[in-house]
């Protein structure tokens, strides 16, 4: 006889609230990391799966989000070590939205896809999530010096991309 084990219901209630409040913001970061709608959703859900059991013990939504963010970025880095094939995003036109600058989105997607994963992560943390370099270092569990060097290299690479090389 195999006994069924019940899971606590309280964690799910809290997770529901958190996802409703912060899910979209997390997905937007994940999109910048992955360049793909479905991979972004998968990345956020995987990070939630890895961390939701910590939600009650972490106490606050902010503390949980910091923990989740670190997990999400580490998951992204781990995935890309194993699975990333170097393909450039092709979905930009598939998910066209009205009133959106598709050329800009394409340029952003292409420019980010050309960056090594570590540089891409610090760019998203510092220039999209607006974390300080010290906060990004904590999130990625690397030194501030490494964050600085990654950002410097990323900017150097982005200067040659259409994203930053185009005149306003």
């Amino acid at each position, binding site marked *: 006889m195999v006994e069924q*084990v019940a899971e606590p219901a309280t964690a799910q209630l809290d997770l529901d609230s958190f996802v409703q409040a912060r899910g979209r913001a997390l997905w937007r970061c994940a999109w910048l990391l992955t360049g793909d709608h479905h991979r972004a959703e998968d990345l956020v*859900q995987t990070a*939630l799966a890895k961390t939701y059991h910590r939600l009650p013990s972490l106490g606050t939504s902010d503390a949980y989000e910091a923990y989740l963010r670190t997990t999400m970025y580490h998951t992204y880095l781990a995935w890309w070590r194993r699975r990333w094939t170097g393909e450039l995003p092709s979905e930009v036109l598939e998910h066209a939205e009205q009133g959106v600058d598709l050329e800009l989105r394409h340029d952003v997607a292409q420019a980010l896809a050309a960056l090594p994963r570590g540089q891409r992560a610090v760019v998203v943390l510092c220039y999209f999530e*607006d974390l300080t370099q010290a906060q990004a270092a904590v999130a990625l569990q690397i030194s501030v010096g490494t964050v600085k060097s990654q950002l410097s290299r990323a900017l150097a690479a982005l200067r040659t991309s259409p994203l930053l090389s185009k005149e306003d």
Partner: protein
Amino acid sequence: MNEVDRLRDALHRAVPDAPELTGWVGVARGKARRGRLTAGVVVVAVALLAVPLAWSGLRGSTVALPTAPSASPVTAQPVASAEPVSPICLQHREPSPLADAGLPLGAQQATLCAEGTESLSYAGIPDALTIGVDELIRSFNGLPLGAANDCDSAPGLTFRIVFSYPDGSARVIRGENACRVIGAPGGGEARE
């Protein structure tokens, strides 16, 4: 506007609208459950190394697996080995759902079972482990959750460990290699 400000502005303007969040929590919980099963792989990998060694060293001191009076040794099919398969393995084929708390302590024995695959040269062990079972459970319960995604695309050898409790109940963990396995062929990543 300097280049950093241009980059910030471009990132914020380029990101698509997020999709509906309906069902995300359910998907995350499902991934967590599958991840817990995946984590069992690590235990299996450890057991594959440790249990046969323990058996060879402790065979004289371990308690033999009790078998039903009518049970006779069954040869595994189609595994290559001719080792007899424990009836426990035949009775408990499906993995048990696991809570965050993991497996309960107090199991009397742990039986290592192999699932029948032609590529598997190891047929399981007819005797059950009766020493250090709680240590094995603690090791399993202490594992972090791992994503099961990697298992989806890389099927491999499959194993089970059946934990038998004094009240007659059993819990089964099942693992596949090519996931996040320590030292498993093709595993790539160590556990997180």
